[in-house]
């Protein structure tokens, strides 16, 4: 693995993704198709959505799925399909943003902490471990309560939840990488600390990031849905699956199944997409797992 160069890695990955690879290859393809479909939906939401997602009474209240409203309407007469399409945009923005932020912070801190070592490393590791000790959802709820509603506050609370994961993984790799001969050799030629971290060590830890990234994305979708379900996530004017699930769930007892089922299904699908992609990637990139 460590001997593969970046371009080679991609070509060898692509060659492995062919259906001949069996289950893992299928995992990746199915996961990728699901995720890409949602991304497509999110990007082209204004074109795809038949109605304004926030406009009430575009149809009757609680209209069951029909040709005009394929997924029916909710208690305010809003088109559920349009809300789902716009909702995908919300979910993906929050997920990708928090993934980008948490991996950037976690990886950088992990690199520095692992390399510097000593008291700084001990202190930072203790802090990260104490964050990690909380169940992700509980921590996210606490932070969301503190930070309030809105895209940014939710993104930040998800970010904080995931930073320790990257930190711990990267720090561990740096610790073992630090002992390797090529790092020592780089020291012996007088490379500066910064050069050592970012030019010698960093490229060697990159391969372990994508798997965690996609598995975290799946978790982030669920956590965001949970936050919105509890009413801690986003303000009412932003269409969001978790919030819609909550609203639809109330109607279930009246045998009105569509307002809750469709957003819930979307949450499951997107989570499945990210998980399949991540698992498939892990199987292919980690030789210890393949052949299991």
């Amino acid at each position, binding site marked *: 693995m*460590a001997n593969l*160069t970046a371009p080679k890695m991609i070509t060898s990955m692509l060659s492995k993704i062919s259906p001949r690879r069996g289950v893992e290859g299928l995992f990746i393809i199915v996961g990728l198709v699901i995720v890409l479909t949602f991304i497509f939906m999110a990007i082209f939401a204004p074109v795809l959505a038949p109605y304004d997602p926030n406009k009430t009474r575009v149809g009757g209240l609680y209209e069951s799925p029909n040709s005009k409203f394929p997924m029916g309407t909710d208690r305010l007469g809003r088109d559920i399909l349009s809300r789902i399409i716009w909702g995908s945009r919300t979910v993906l923005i929050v997920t990708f943003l928090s993934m980008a932020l948490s991996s950037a912070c976690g990886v950088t801190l992990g690199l520095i902490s692992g390399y510097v070592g000593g008291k700084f490393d001990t202190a930072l590791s203790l802090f990260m471990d104490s964050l990690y000790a909380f169940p992700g959802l509980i921590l996210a709820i606490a932070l969301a309560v503190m930070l309030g509603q809105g895209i940014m506050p939710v993104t930040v609370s998800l970010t904080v939840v995931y930073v320790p994961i990257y930190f711990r993984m990267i720090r561990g790799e740096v610790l073992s990488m630090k002992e390797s001969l090529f790092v*020592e050799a780089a*020291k*012996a030629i007088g*490379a500066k600390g910064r050069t050592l971290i970012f030019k010698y060590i960093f*490229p*060697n830890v990159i391969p372990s990031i994508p798997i965690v990234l996609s598995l975290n994305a799946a978790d982030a979708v669920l956590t965001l849905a949970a936050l919105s379900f509890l009413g801690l996530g986003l303000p009412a004017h932003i269409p969001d699956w978790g919030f819609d699930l909550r609203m639809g769930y109330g109607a279930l007892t009246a045998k009105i199944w569509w307002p809750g089922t469709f957003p819930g299904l979307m949450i499951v699908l997107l989570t499945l997409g990210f998980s399949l992609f991540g698992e498939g990637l892990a199987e292919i990139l980690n030789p210890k797992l393949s052949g299991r």
Partner: protein
Amino acid sequence: MISDLLRIEGLRVYYYTRDGVVMAVDNVDLFMKKGETIGLVGESGSGKSTLGRAILRLVPPPGRIISGKIVFDGLNLTELSEEEMRKIRGKRISMVFQDPMTSLDPLMKIGDHIVETIMAHETLTREEAEEKAIKLLEQVGIRSERFMDYPHQFSGGMRQRVGIALALALNPDLVIADEPTSSLDVIVQFQILDLMKELKNLYGMGMILITHDISIIPGIADKVALMYAGQLVEFADAKSFFNEPLHPYGKALLESIPNIQHSDQKLKYIPGNPPDLINPPKGCRFSPRCPYATEKCREEEPPTIMVGHHRLVKCFQY
């Protein structure tokens, strides 16, 4: 004495392990002139690599330089700050590592290794550094079109050539070669040694060649420093050492080189094991294995004696 390139005085490097203090380098004195090659010979665990690393102040933890001076061109390296030391590494003292398979970054192109080395010390543009790197690679026998290749695309011998190019990149005054040929097969070994000899003559730098293989010393080293159990037991010019080693350990070592012209001879070896460096034997450390050892050897540590012209030996016999 001022003209010495490197002068080591009373150097002690200890490893603080859980089992006790390992005295890997114990009171070693060594000096070398500019442009000289010293063959630092000893068996595994005799402290030769630790000594080499101590010169660059790269002793891995839990090892520490306890006492002694390492004076390089008038600078006491043990007193420099980490940043001052970094400026010396690679630029004035560089190192060739034993295992070329792992001493290169697997994700860094061969050319970038050399460019990074140059740019760590000199303010050149990338183009200038690349030009210099290509010249260096050609000097060690690697064609310029391989500049963009990764280490895994090279054989062991080729990688060691890269390692040498790296060590020479900034024209240092001293190169420490830590078993540069030990992981290579015999033919490649001699190619690499020839290359090193050739480049040494070209650049005129001093070299400390660390090896456990005493047979590669004669062609390349001016002097031999023989280490045993963390101590320097003999220091002599290569010619007189191979003609007549003074220390009993040196004698035994030379006798144990197999000789194909006397194939009927039984292979000689040194009985016993190298001593434990946590609890070294009392007196002379070689005394338990020495055929000439007397009661005095087992009780007192022998002094380092000057024999003839600039020849040092740590033995009571002289």
